[in-house]
C-alpha cells in the first residue's frame, strides 16, 4: 500500500517544486531586471548584430544567449520581457478569475433567469474564435497593456463561468446546502460560505492555468504586432522576429520560446499540483 501511495505522491511534490521554482526565478528576474540584465535590452548596435550564443564560434562576452538582427541582447530582452509577461499573467488572470467565477457562481447557484442570461452569453462567446476575438478587440481598443488585459478578460471569462457554474450546481444540490438554507441563512451568505470554499480547489487550478494562457495570448498578440509598443521587449515580439530570421539566427527564436514554454508549463503544473493539495477529497 505504501508503495502505491509513494508512487502517486512523489511526482506531485516534484511537479510543485519544479514549476514553483521556475516561476520564482521569473519573478526575481522581473523585479531585478535593470540590475541583472547584462545589456540594455533596447540598445541597438549593428556591430553586434546576430551574435551566436556563448558556446558557438564568434560569440561575444556579455551576449550570453546571442543577439538579434538589430544587435540587441537576447538574454536581457528575455529578462525584461518577464516583467510584462508576469504583469499580464497576474492582473489579467486575477481579473478574469474574479469576473468569471462571480458569474459562474450566480448562474449555478441562483439558477432561474440570471442563469439563463449568463448561459446565453457563454453560448455566444463559445461561438467566437477566441484568438480572432482578441485580435479584433486590440484593433478596436488600440495597443497597450490595458487593452491586452481587457482583451484577455473579455475573451476568457467564460472558462471560469462554465466550470464554476457546473460545480456550483452540483454543490447546490447537496444536502449541506439545503440544511444551511433551512437554518435560515441568506442565499448570498450560503453561496459565499458554503459553495465558494468547496469550489476553491477548482478556482485555484483554473486561475494558474489562466495565468499561463494570459502569457500565451500576450505572446500571440505581440506575434501579430498588436501588443504594446514595438520598443519594449516582449517574448511574443521576440518570437515573431525570431520566426522570420530562424534560418539565419535560430537563437532569437529558441530562447524566448523555451522561456515561454517553461512558463506556461509551470503555471499549469502548479495549478494541478495545488489542486491536489487543496482538494479535501483527494487530501
Amino acid at each position, binding site marked *: 500500500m505504501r508503495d502505491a501511495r509513494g508512487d502517486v505522491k512523489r511526482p506531485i511534490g516534484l511537479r510543485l517544486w519544479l514549476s514553483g521554482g521556475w516561476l520564482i526565478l521569473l519573478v526575481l528576474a522581473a523585479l531585478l531586471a535593470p540590475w541583472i540584465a547584462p545589456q540594455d535590452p533596447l540598445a541597438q548596435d549593428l556591430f553586434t548584430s546576430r551574435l551566436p550564443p556563448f558556446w558557438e564560434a564568434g560569440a561575444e562576452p556579455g551576449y550570453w544567449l546571442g543577439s538579434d538582427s538589430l544587435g540587441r541582447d537576447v538574454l536581457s530582452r528575455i529578462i525584461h520581457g518577464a516583467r510584462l509577461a508576469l504583469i499580464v499573467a497576474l492582473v489579467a488572470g486575477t481579473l478574469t478569475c474574479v469576473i468569471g467565477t462571480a458569474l459562474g457562481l450566480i448562474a449555478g447557484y441562483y439558477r432561474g433567469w440570471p442563469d439563463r442570461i449568463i448561459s446565453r452569453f457563454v453560448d455566444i462567446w463559445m461561438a467566437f474564435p477566441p*484568438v*480572432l476575438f482578441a485580435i*479584433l478587440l486590440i*484593433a478596436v481598443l488600440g495597443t497597450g497593456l490595458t487593452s491586452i488585459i481587457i482583451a484577455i478578460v473579455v475573451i476568457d471569462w467564460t472558462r471560469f463561468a462554465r466550470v464554476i457554474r457546473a460545480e456550483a450546481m452540483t454543490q447546490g444540490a447537496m444536502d449541506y446546502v439545503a440544511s444551511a438554507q433551512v437554518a435560515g441563512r441568506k442565499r448570498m451568505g450560503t453561496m459565499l460560505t458554503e459553495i465558494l470554499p468547496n469550489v476553491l480547489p477548482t478556482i485555484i487550478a483554473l486561475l494558474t492555468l489562466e495565468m499561463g494562457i494570459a502569457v500565451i495570448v500576450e505572446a500571440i498578440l505581440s506575434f501579430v504586432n498588436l501588443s504594446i509598443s514595438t520598443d519594449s521587449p516582449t517574448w511574443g515580439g521576440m518570437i515573431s522576429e525570431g520566426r522570420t530570421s530562424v534560418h539565419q539566427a*535560430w537563437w532569437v527564436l529558441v530562447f524566448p520560446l523555451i522561456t515561454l514554454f517553461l512558463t506556461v508549463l509551470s503555471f499549469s503544473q502548479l495549478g494541478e499540483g495545488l489542486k491536489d493539495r487543496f482538494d479535501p477529497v483527494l487530501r
Partner: protein
Amino acid sequence: MTLLRNILMRLLSTAITLFGVAVIIFVVIRVVPGNPIAMMLPPGATEADIARLQAQYGFDKSIFEQFMIWLRGVVQGDFGTSISLRQPVSSLVLNRLPATLELSIVALLIAVVIGGTMALTGTRWRNTRKEGAIDVSTGMALSIPDFLWGLVLILLFGVLWPVFHISGRISPALDIDFTTNFYLFEALLRLRFDVLGDLIGHMFMPALALAIPLSAIIAQLLKQSLKETMHLDYVTLSRTHGYGEHHVITRDALPNAILPTLTLVGVQFTFLIGGTVIIERLFSYEGLGNMAIDAVINRDLPLIQGIVILFALIFTLVNLAVDMLYVVLNPRLRHA
C-alpha cells in the same frame, strides 16, 4: 414528437446564438476609431470622394440601420463587399473555407489516431509505470497550446531537420488545375500524388500543432473511460470466453467507452478550429484565419463580420453534429 421538439429548440437556440454573435461583432467593430474608407483611397482624395464611398458602404447611417441593411443582405446570402479586396465577402470567404476545413479535419484525424493509440496503450499498461509515463506526457501536451507547439515544430522539422515546408499551403511552382479549392480531397480523388505529397508537406506541421493538445485530451478522457469500462462484468465475461487483452479492450470496452468521450471532444474540436486562426498565421497558410487577421489589420469591416459569422456557424454546426452522432452511436437513444 419530443424528438422533433428537441430539434426545433436546438435550431432556435442556434439561431439566437448566431444572432448574438452578429450583434456583438457589429457593435464591437463599429467602435473602431479611424476611417476604414480613407485607407482605400489614394492620398489625394477629396472629402467628397470619402463621403461618396462611405455612402456606398453605408457607413453614413446609424449602427442600427447598418445592422438591418446587413441582416437583410445576409438573409439573401449577400455578406457585402470587402473594402480592402473589393470583392464580395461571400465569394472571398468561400474560396478560403476549404483550406481551413481541410486543415481542421486532418488535424482532427491526427488527434484521434494519436490520442486513441495512447488511450489504448495506456489501458493495456494500466497501473504500471508505463501508464504513469503516458499520463505525464499527455499532461504536458495538454498544458502547452497549439501556438507554441507550432513554433517547436518549425524548429524541429523546418530548421533542425528540414523535411517539411514551413509556410504556405502548396508550392507555387506546382501546376494545378483543380475545379474546387478542396485541394487535398480533389488530389485524392484525381490520384494526383505529386500534389498530394506537396499538400501534406505543407499541412503536416500546422495540423500536428493543432492536433497535439486535442490528442492529449482524447488520450486522457478515453483512457479514463476505458479503465472504468474494463471493470464491468461483460468485459470479464468476454475474458472467460478466451479473448485476449487486446481484443477485450478494442472490441468490448472501446465501443462503450467512446460515447462519454465524444461530447467533450466535440467542444474541443471547435477550440481546434478556433486555433487555426493563429496557426494559419504562423505557417502563412492561406486559410480563413489568416485572411481574418489581415482583415482586422486592414479594418475591413464587412470581411471581418463575414468571417466571424462563418466561424460561429461552423462551431454551432459541429456541436449539432456531435449531438446527432451521440444519438446515432448510442443504441439506447437510437431506439427510444
